[in-house]
C-alpha cells in the first residue's frame, strides 16, 4: 500500500498517493488539466506544455503530467498567469497549424483536440510561421496517412511505436521548426519495421495521422455511431469499436486504454481488415446443399438440424472416434470451449483441435 497524504489543488485539500503526478490526482478528483502529449501508456515527456500548472515554491510553471506530488504540495491549475500561458501557447500552435475557413485548427475524421483547446482562448491572429516540415509523399502504404501541417510534434506516435509496440518504425527527425515525423530514409511504412497496427493514429491528438480508408470528412458528415464488438481474427478477444456511418463500418478503433484487455491497442487485422463486412461474397446466412449439390438458403434451425443429422449418421455407422472437430483460430476462447463441449459431451469423442494450437 503506497503512502497517502493531502495536497492542495486550487485551494482545496485532496487526497493523493505517493508517486502520483499532478495530472493523475486532478483527473481522479475531477479537475480538468488540459494536455496534448499525454497518453497514460507512455512515459510523460511534458513536451506539449499545455498542462503547465503552478507549483508553490517553484519559480517556473511545471508540467502537471510529469510533476510528482508530495505531501502538502500546493498546486494552482487556473489563474491569470496560467490563462495567459494557455492563450499564447494555443495561438502559437495555431500559427504552426493548418486552419479551416473559420480560423480554427482543421479537423480531420479523427477530430482535433487542439481545435477544442483553441476555442477556449481569444484569437490573437498570429501570422503563420510556415514551417518547412517534410512529409512522405512517396509513402504508398495502404492504411496510414501523415499530414505534417496538422502535427504538433508531441511525439505520441513515435513514443507509442517505441514504448508500447517496440517496433520503432517512426522517429522525430530534423530539428527546430523543421522537426517532423519520419521513417529511416523517409521510406514508405511498408518498407520499414512498421506492422501497420495503426496505434499511432489512435494516439495522435490532432488527427495528423489518419486512416487512409476512412472518409476524410467524417466529422463534417455528422460523425459515426459506435458499436462495441470483439475482434474475430484471433482468439485474444480484443475489444473494438466499429464506427458506422450510413449502415457501413467506416473505421475501427480500440476502446480507451485501461478499459479492455487490449488496453487501447489493436493489430493491423483488427483495425484495418474490415472490408469483408460489406463484401458482396460474404455469406450472411446459412446455406444447405440441395440434391443437385447447389447451395440453398436455410434458417439456422434447419442448418443445425442438417449438421447434427449428418454427424449422427456417421457416428452411428462408424463410432464416435470416427468424428473429428477443428475450430478456427478466428474463434474466441468461449467459442472454442463450446466446440470441445460439442465434441466431448454431444458426440463422445476427444478428437477436437483448434487450428492455432499447433
Amino acid at each position: 500500500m503506497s503512502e497517502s497524504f493531502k495536497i492542495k489543488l486550487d485551494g482545496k485539500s485532496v487526497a493523493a498517493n505517493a508517486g502520483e503526478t499532478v495530472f493523475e490526482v486532478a483527473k481522479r478528483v475531477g479537475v480538468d488539466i488540459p494536455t496534448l502529449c499525454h497518453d497514460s501508456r507512455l512515459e510523460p515527456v511534458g513536451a506539449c506544455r499545455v498542462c503547465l500548472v503552478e507549483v508553490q515554491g517553484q519559480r517556473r510553471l511545471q508540467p502537471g503530467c510529469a510533476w510528482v506530488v508530495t505531501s502538502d504540495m500546493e498546486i494552482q491549475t487556473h489563474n491569470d498567469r496560467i490563462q495567459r500561458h494557455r492563450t499564447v501557447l494555443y495561438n502559437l500552435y495555431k500559427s504552426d497549424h493548418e486552419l479551416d475557413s473559420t480560423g480554427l485548427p482543421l479537423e480531420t475524421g479523427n477530430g482535433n483536440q487542439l481545435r477544442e483547446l483553441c476555442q477556449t482562448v481569444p484569437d490573437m491572429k498570429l501570422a503563420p510561421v510556415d514551417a518547412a516540415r517534410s512529409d512522405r509523399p512517396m509513402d504508398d502504404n495502404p492504411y496510414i496517412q501523415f499530414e505534417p501541417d496538422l502535427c504538433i510534434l508531441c511525439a505520441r506516435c513515435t513514443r507509442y511505436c517505441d514504448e508500447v509496440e517496440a517496433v520503432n518504425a517512426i522517429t522525430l527527425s530534423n530539428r527546430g521548426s523543421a522537426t517532423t515525423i519520419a521513417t529511416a530514409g523517409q521510406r514508405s511504412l511498408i518498407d520499414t519495421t512498421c506492422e501497420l497496427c495503426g496505434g499511432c493514429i489512435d494516439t495522435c491528438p490532432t488527427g495528423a495521422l489518419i486512416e487512409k480508408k476512412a472518409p476524410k470528412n467524417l466529422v463534417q458528415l455528422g460523425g459515426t455511431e459506435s458499436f462495441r464488438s470483439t475482434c474475430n481474427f484471433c482468439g485474444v478477444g480484443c475489444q473494438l469499436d466499429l464506427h458506422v456511418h450510413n449502415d457501413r463500418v467506416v473505421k475501427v478503433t480500440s476502446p480507451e486504454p485501461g478499459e479492455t484487455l487490449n488496453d487501447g491497442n489493436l493489430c493491423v487485422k483488427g483495425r484495418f481488415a474490415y472490408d469483408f463486412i460489406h463484401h458482396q461474397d460474404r455469406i450472411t446466412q446459412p446455406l444447405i446443399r440441395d440434391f443437385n449439390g447447389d447451395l440453398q438458403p436455410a434458417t439456422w434451425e434447419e442448418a443445425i438440424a442438417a449438421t447434427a443429422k449428418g454427424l449422427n449418421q456417421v457416428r452411428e455407422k462408424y463410432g464416435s472416434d470416427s468424428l473429428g472437430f477443428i475450430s478456427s483460430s478466428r474463434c474466441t476462447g468461449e467459442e472454442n470451449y463450446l466446440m470441445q463441449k460439442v465434441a466431448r459431451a454431444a458426440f463422445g469423442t476427444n478428437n477436437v483441435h483448434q487450428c492455432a494450437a499447433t
Partner: protein
Amino acid sequence: MLKPDAQREKILDLLEHAGGVTEESVRQVSKETGVPEADVWGTGKFYSLIDTPGKRTRVCDGLSCQMAGADELAKSIEDAGRACERVSCLGQCDLAVATLTEDMQLKTYTKKQTTISPDDPDLAINLAGPVDLSYSALKKAIVLGASGVIDEIEASGLQGRGGAGFPAHIKWKSVRSQPETQRYVVCNADEAEPGTFKDRETILRQPHKMLEGLAITAAMIETSEIYIYIRGEYGNEYASINRAIKEAQTQLAEFNFTVVRGHGAYICGEETALLESLEGKRGMPRLKPPFPTEAGFRGKPSLIHNVETIACVPSIIHRGGEHFKNLGRSEPGSKLYCISGHVELPGVYELPLGVTLDELVAAAGGYTGTPLAFSPGGASSGFLPISMRELPLDYKNLANAGSMMGSSGIVVLNDTVDMAQAAGWQLEFFERESCGQCAPCRIGSRYLRRQNDVYLKLGDPIAFEHADDVAWEMEEGSICGLGMVAAKPLESARKHFPDHFKTK
C-alpha cells in the same frame, strides 16, 4: 524499445565516420549497433555536422562574424561556384570572419590582432602562464580529502562558469550524497554560445588545468569515469585534449578519460541535452527534476561542469578558497572575459569578476568607432545600451539589469550597426538551434524571427504587435534555458533602442 545489448552511444560517431546520414549509412550503423534504423536516422538528422552528407564550406554567422562581413564572404564563396553553408557561431569571434573549410579545417579572415591577458601567476587560470605538469593540486586534494576540498570550493565562492552561475560546491555535495556509487564526471566543452571562445583558449593553452580539475573532482566524488564532451567544430582543441591526456598519463593513471565529439548542435551545451547526446540520442533537454546530480549520464549521479569552472579548481586547491575569492571584485574569483566586435584587440582577458565594460575594453585596446551597445554574455543575454558601461559585469548585476552574465562572451557594437538587424541575426541563431521539442521555443523563435524580418523589410512596427506576448510565453513555457532566452535579443533591443524600431 532498445535491445539490452544495443550500442546506442556509438551511433553518432559511426554516422560521422560514414560521411553523414544516408539510407545506406543508417542501415549499416543500425546493423552494427542494434539500434533501430528509424532511431539512427532521427538522431543523425538532429545534428548539423552529419545531417546532410557532402563537402561544403561552413561560414559562421555569429554576431561578430556578421559585423565583420560574413554575408559578403559567403556570397563570394557561392559566386565562385563552391558549396557554402551558413552555420551558427564557430567560437572564433576574435578572428571574425570564421569558416570551416571543406575538410573541416578552421580558416579565419580576420584583419585584427587577437590576444590574451599577459602572464600573471596570481590569476586562477592564467592562460599565458607556464604549463604545470606536476599535478600537485591533485595530490594535495587527495591528502585534504573530500570534505576539506569541498570546504575550500565553498569558501572560494566558485560559481558555474558555463552560464548559470550555480554554486559549484552544492553540486559536489549533492553527487556525494547519492546512495548510487556508480557516478560520472562530465566536462562541458561544448562551447557554442555566440561571442564565446574562452574554453577554446583554456583547452589550447592550459589543458592540464582542466584535466587536473577533472581528476580532483572525480576523486572527490569517488569515481574514475570522466567524460569530456567537446563541440565537433573544435578540431584543434580536440587534439589538444588528447595530447594533454597522453602527456599526463602517469599522473592520471587512475582515471579513465573519454573524449566525445559533438556533431553540430548548440543545444548540447545545455547539460541535460549534452547527456542525451552522450547517450547517442537527439539532443533534446530533459525535464528537471531529476537533476543530473541525482540521475545524469546513463541515469547515474553526474557532476557536470564547464571547462572554465573545472580549470579554476587546481588554483583553488593550491592557494585556498579565500585567495580565489579575493581575486574577484563584486563576486568571487578571476573570470575569463571574451571580447569581440568593435574593439581594437579582441581576445580573452582574465580579470576580476565584476569589472566594467570600459575596464575590459581598455584591456582590449579601446573601442573601434563610437560604441552603441554591447551584448554582455552571448546571444542569450540580449543587448544593453552603452550607457550601462559602468555596470559590474557579474552574475547578479547583469541579472538585475534584465540581462545575464552567461558565458561572458561580450560583443561590442558601434553606431554603424542597426539594432533591428543585430536582433535579427541573434533570432536566426535561436531559430536554427532550437531543438524543436517544445512549442513555445520551436514556434516562438521562428515567429519572432519572421516578424523581425517583416519589420526590416517594411519598416512598420505593427510587425511586433504580439512580440511581447510571444516572448513572455517563450520564457514561461519553454522546457529549457534556450527557449527561455531566445526572445531576449529582440526584447532587449526594442527596450533599449526604440529609435531602431520606429516606423521607417
